[in-house]
């Protein structure tokens, strides 16, 4: 009850923190979609590079987020941005790249080879093939990667409060230092709800981006 009362009283603050949280995740994920899809396409076209890129990504994702934030501090201090919004965005961007690159690559190499054969045989050049055939038919799998990236990084962004990036993690970190269960629960519940809502929203986007001729993926 205490917690609910606290939430009600601090609703505007929760809203502000949620916006900070989303701004980190959105900027990072949008960048990661652009770069990750490009890299995914690149390694699908140059399959010899794929194992190195994909295992490099797998290693990146095992680095604990708190350690990554720590490593970014001395690097970014050189431009006066050691803590705060920028290192949070960079870390989330790095984590987001992994599922997006992997899913883009997997989707492209998993396409029916007959589509490729038909597209080339009918006289499409490389970019026409990509934009008209390969990417549209890969959309469900790529969007699944984007959803994984967003949900995973809403959690990771909560930790960015420790490097002064703001966001809903602020409630959690203060709850821990002040042994205030109300703030801790508020932060935890808000992060969870944000993740669930984002995933739901992205499911709708995924549905829209999936060509009608493709059976929708079941997740």
């Amino acid at each position, binding site marked *: 009850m205490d917690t609910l009362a606290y939430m009600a009283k601090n609703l505007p603050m929760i809203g502000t923190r949620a916006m900070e949280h989303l701004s980190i995740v959105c900027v990072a994920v949008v960048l990661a979609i652009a770069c990750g899809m490009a890299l995914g396409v690149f390694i699908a076209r140059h399959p010899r590079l794929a194992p190195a890129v994909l295992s490099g990504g797998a290693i990146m994702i095992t680095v604990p987020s708190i350690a990554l934030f720590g490593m970014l501090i001395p690097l970014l201090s050189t431009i006066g941005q050691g803590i705060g919004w920028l290192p949070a965005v960079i870390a989330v961007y790095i984590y987001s790249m992994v599922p997006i690159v992997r899913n883009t690559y997997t989707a492209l190499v998993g396409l029916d080879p007959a589509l490729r054969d038909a597209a080339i045989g009918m*006289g*499409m*050049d490389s970019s*026409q093939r990509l934009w008209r055939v390969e990417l549209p038919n890969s959309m469900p799998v790529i969007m699944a990667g984007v959803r994984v990236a967003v949900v995973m990084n809403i959690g990771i962004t909560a930790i960015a409060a420790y490097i002064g990036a703001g966001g809903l993690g602020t409630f959690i970190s203060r709850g821990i230092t002040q042994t205030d269960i109300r703030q801790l629960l508020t932060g935890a519940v808000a992060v969870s709800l944000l993740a669930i809502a984002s995933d739901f929203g992205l499911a709708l986007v995924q549905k829209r981006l999936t060509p009608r001729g*493709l059976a929708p993926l079941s997740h």
Partner: protein
Amino acid sequence: MTLPNAHPMITLEHLSKVYGAPGSTAAVDDVSLTVGSGEICVLIGPSGCGKTTTMRMVNRLITPTGGRVLIDGQDTTAIDTVALRRSIGYVIQQVGLFPNMTVEENIGVVPRLLGWDRARMRARAAELLDMVGLDVGQFLGRFPNQLSGGQQQRVGVARALAADPPVLLMDEPFGAIDPINRAAIQDQFLAMQQKLKKTVLLVSHDIDEAVKMADRIAIFRAGRLEQAGTPDEILVAPANDFVGGFVGPDRTLKRLRRKRVSQVHVPLVYSVGQQVEVAVDGCHGTIQVDAAGLVVAMTADGRAIGPVSVRMDSDLRVVVSELLRLAVPWLPCVDGEGRLRGVVSQAAISRQVSGASVAASSDAVSKQGGGNAATP
């Protein structure tokens, strides 16, 4: 059937493809072949014989390591690869319709690459759907996953024809379709071809399909062209044991498929509503026709049989099948309306298939034994 004087549309000159180091076994070894304008040439042979590789060198999906390909007299290396492919229709066994596009959009792929406007693309898609026997209103807006395999391949053929290319490459186009639909779609393609007169290179592993569809058959083994000729030439005179084995010991029956009743029948003059006495060309008996000229009954060699007849455009395999079933030496043949036109006899069919001169027309008269001579 054969177009001896056809203008050469596809010419393969000493075409070769070697994978790996020079001196490795060639996938295609020194193949020379000419396909005349408006002909269907079927490339056939066992798996790995180089037939598909040969076809894919025509639109440069595979780059030859030796020799060259001319299309309408022009060396294909002198044409931009992408432009070359847009000017050649391409049909594959797996169909390869783009799942993200409707039937209309799939048919419009090459026209769109060529910069046609929307109205022209739509009109063309409708025209082609109609031509391949699919209802325009029902199918234009459908997606490939809403079509059966046979419908998909009909759309695949329509797509290849969209920009009206003079040349079509077809890689086992009907191989994945069930036998009943396959026969229907083959018949329809042949009917379309009567009007369109495309130059078609069709890869198949089915000798029956080849005999049915081809103006010329090219038989491959281990990268080499073993024999090329009209179906009749190949069935009458296989160049070697391999070709003989490939076309099969029933090759005479296979030849009958490409011959029509109209080529061997003896015309009859008669009055409707009467009994027609038959005593020509080894056919003895009577045929009863009603007032409309329809066959009511027949008597052959003293045996009475019901109203059996074959059509003028039936192939001789059908006739032989009926002759065997009824154990008679001849049958009446009728036109499209069922009116008696003449008789077709076992003797006439025998003369037709034992003729030595394969390119000769239907009036070739028999000389026994010439059929097995090897071609030089």
